[in-house]
């Protein structure tokens, strides 16, 4: 009996050893260099078409991401006696923007019938803002195809040939007929303003906007510059600056909370970035063939033949292609690289940022907005710089550099190839300390003191509040677009 037990054990052991040795020979890297991966990748390839059938397309659709990343900076709900300004990031903003973009989206997608289109003058356009209307202000010039893609989910090519670049739209209420409404759009390329009379499928519930305005206690103290007559030269006195007619001017000083920033990375040093592998993968950096080092300030540097990736311990990452290098291919296969437009560049940029951040840094991705103009104005054909801003409670955060202020993300793309990528991977929290933001008119005076030469009035196209991150923390500042250049005024 004992002998049989011994035999059984010996047999089982010899069988197990045989299996183990076969496993070692097959998967030990001698016959199959990639070990298990060789088999599993083959199986995956085999089943990929089936997987595609059952799981459908990838959810990371560009239009979806664009609708999240490209939204109006603010929505202004104008009623006859009241006005409310809802900034990005608030609940009221979501309600009002949802209302406006629903109407605008169905208008440009052709779901609503356009009964009439006419060209109007600036005075008529501005008068609309005094009546019952909603003004969605993007705060930047946008290619119309991009904006249509962000609002209605797909690129709108043919229906509105008169529109190239717009920076917002106005939905005007038609009080005589609840099923009709007006859309006002200024084409920034030629300055033409269009009014469309649109017929909705059902009566529009404007009462929602009345309720929204009434539910907010404090009435806005902002006025459009045309209401204050700041939008044109004065007849009897020297005019030192002119505001664009739709710039909102608040004459009362605002109290704003300060904030503090911190790096998402672990500053202890051992693992600077919990997402390092993912970041390297996104930039297609082959960890097998790179030079890497960590400098005395804990900055991680990865050097490839064609590019360098730097990760600072304060959360700043920078990818830079070598001078004359082609860059990292990020283009969508469907895009035509020979006629690379801003639409394609933004699509590629959005997909790249989504891929980089959505899974690993969703807390930052969710508060990103595209900043800067999105138009075909590049001096070099096919070369675009795309900016993204992190918004803290709806307020974009800029980062103080040695010479100026930087956006949270800055990408330079040429014909589908990423030449440079800079990002501040930092998080922010509001502090308990509030500071008084100087009145806008005072800020404008500062500009006059520093820029006005006596020749022609300064032309202010846009004013917005930004946080600027400095060594002292985040400080609220005015960001003024004057004579085509951005100026920061504390």
């Amino acid at each position, binding site marked *: 009996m004992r002998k049989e037990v011994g035999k059984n054990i010996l047999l089982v052991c010899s*069988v197990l*050893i*045989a299996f183990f040795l076969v496993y070692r020979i097959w998967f030990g890297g001698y016959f199959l260099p990639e070990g298990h991966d060789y088999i599993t990748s083959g199986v995956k390839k085999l089943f990929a078409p089936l997987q595609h059938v059952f799981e459908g397309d990838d959810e990371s659709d560009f239009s979806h991401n664009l609708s999240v990343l490209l939204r109006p900076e603010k929505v202004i709900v104008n009623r006859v006696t009241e006005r409310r300004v809802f900034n990005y990031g608030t609940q009221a903003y979501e309600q009002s923007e949802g209302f406006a973009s629903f109407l605008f989206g169905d208008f440009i997608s052709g779901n609503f019938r356009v009964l009439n289109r006419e060209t109007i003058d600036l005075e008529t356009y501005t008068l609309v803002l005094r009546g019952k209307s909603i003004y969605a202000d993007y705060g930047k010039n946008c290619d119309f195809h991009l904006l249509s893609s962000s609002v209605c989910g797909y690129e709108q090519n043919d229906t509105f040939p008169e529109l190239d670049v717009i920076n917002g739209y106005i939905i005007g209420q038609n009080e005589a007929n609840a099923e009709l409404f007006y859309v006002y759009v200024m084409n920034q390329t030629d300055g033409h303003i269009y009014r469309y009379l649109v017929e909705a499928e059902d009566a529009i519930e404007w009462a929602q906007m009345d309720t929204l305005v009434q539910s907010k206690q404090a009435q806005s103290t902002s006025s459009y510059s045309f209401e204050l007559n700041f939008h044109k030269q004065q007849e009897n006195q020297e005019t030192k600056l002119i505001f664009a007619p739709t710039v909102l001017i608040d004459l009362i000083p605002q109290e704003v909370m300060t904030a503090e920033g911190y790096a998402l990375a672990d500053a202890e040093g051992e693992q600077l970035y919990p997402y390092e592998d993912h970041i390297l993968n996104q930039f297609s950096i082959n960890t097998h063939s790179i030079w890497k*080092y*960590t400098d005395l300030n804990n900055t991680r540097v990865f050097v490839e033949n064609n590019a360098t990736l730097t990760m600072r311990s304060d959360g700043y990452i920078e990818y830079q292609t070598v001078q004359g290098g082609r860059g990292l291919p990020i283009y969508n296969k469907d895009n035509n690289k020979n006629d690379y437009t801003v639409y394609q560049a933004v699509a590629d940029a959005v997909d790249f940022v989504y891929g980089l951040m959505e899974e690993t840094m969703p807390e930052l991705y969710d508060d990103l907005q595209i900043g800067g103009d999105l138009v075909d104005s590049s001096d070099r054909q096919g070369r675009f710089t795309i900016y993204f801003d992190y918004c803290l409670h709806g307020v974009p955060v800029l980062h103080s550099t040695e010479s100026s202020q930087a956006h949270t993300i800055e990408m330079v793309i040429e014909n589908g190839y990423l030449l440079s990528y800079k990002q501040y991977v930092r998080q922010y929290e509001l502090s308990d300390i509030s500071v008084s933001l100087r009145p806008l008119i005072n800020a404008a005076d500062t500009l006059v003191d520093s820029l006005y030469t006596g020749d022609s009035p300064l032309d202010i196209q846009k004013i917005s509040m930004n946080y600027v991150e400095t060594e002292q923390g985040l400080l609220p500042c005015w960001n003024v677009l004057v004579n085509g250049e951005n100026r920061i005024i504390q």
Partner: protein
Amino acid sequence: MNWSRAKTILIILFLALDVFLLCTLMQTRSVSMKIPEDIIQKTTHILQTNNIEIKPSTIPVVRGINRNIIMKNYFEEPELKASLMLTQTMESVLFDAEHHEYKFQNEKAVLHIKGTEFSYYLKTPSHTTTAPENTHSKNVVEVIQNLLYDLGFEKKSFELKLVSVDDGLYTCEAVPLYQSQKVYGMHMHITATLDEIVNLSGTWFEAKATEEFTDEKLLDVTTVLLDLMYTPEFAGIQIEKIELGYLAIEEYLSSREISAIPVYCIKHSENQVYYADARTGELLS
């Protein structure tokens, strides 16, 4: 059916199979770790017919492991290293963490660290004596190795080379080692008598970890050598030595942590040294 007999037969069969598989495994492992002799012979023949002199014995037969060596600045923790080199009696003269500059001393010697560079020197060097003429260089190296060990440097972590002797002062150079393989690109200058280290300076890193890439093998040295046929610098020269080691690039030596990549170090007759990336075959210098 006689199950007992059947089991015995199965046991014998499986044991025989195990022995066969084990032999196969050993053989494949051995083959995969070494370059076959005929390949080496063919390579040398091709190189010689293309005007590059090389002996088959110069070519290392053992294949290397594809890995990076992560190296940390030796003086990352300056106080700790200072206490090893100057013992407990040392005092801190300068401690500027912001600019990464430190100075420590004891009654006998000074250690100055600036960035990743360091220098250790005696305050008043002892009277130097002429070394006995019959002192063998191997013995000198051993003595100086022991002196460095006394200063906290592990013997297995460096290789020492005697450069010159002048009036009882030995000048040496040390390069770091990782598992007996050299890490090129950095070194330490040593001036010493047979009794003490007089001066020590340079940039020094120690291996902290490795990154192994098991799914990708290094290029065989024979492949790299065959590429040299198309490199004009190697026309008409004789390759004297080839070693598999690791290379740290000099311009990154001002860093806290660096990675050294596997390279073939090729020395030719004109005392020139070339490093070829063992993954791509690309000549690095």
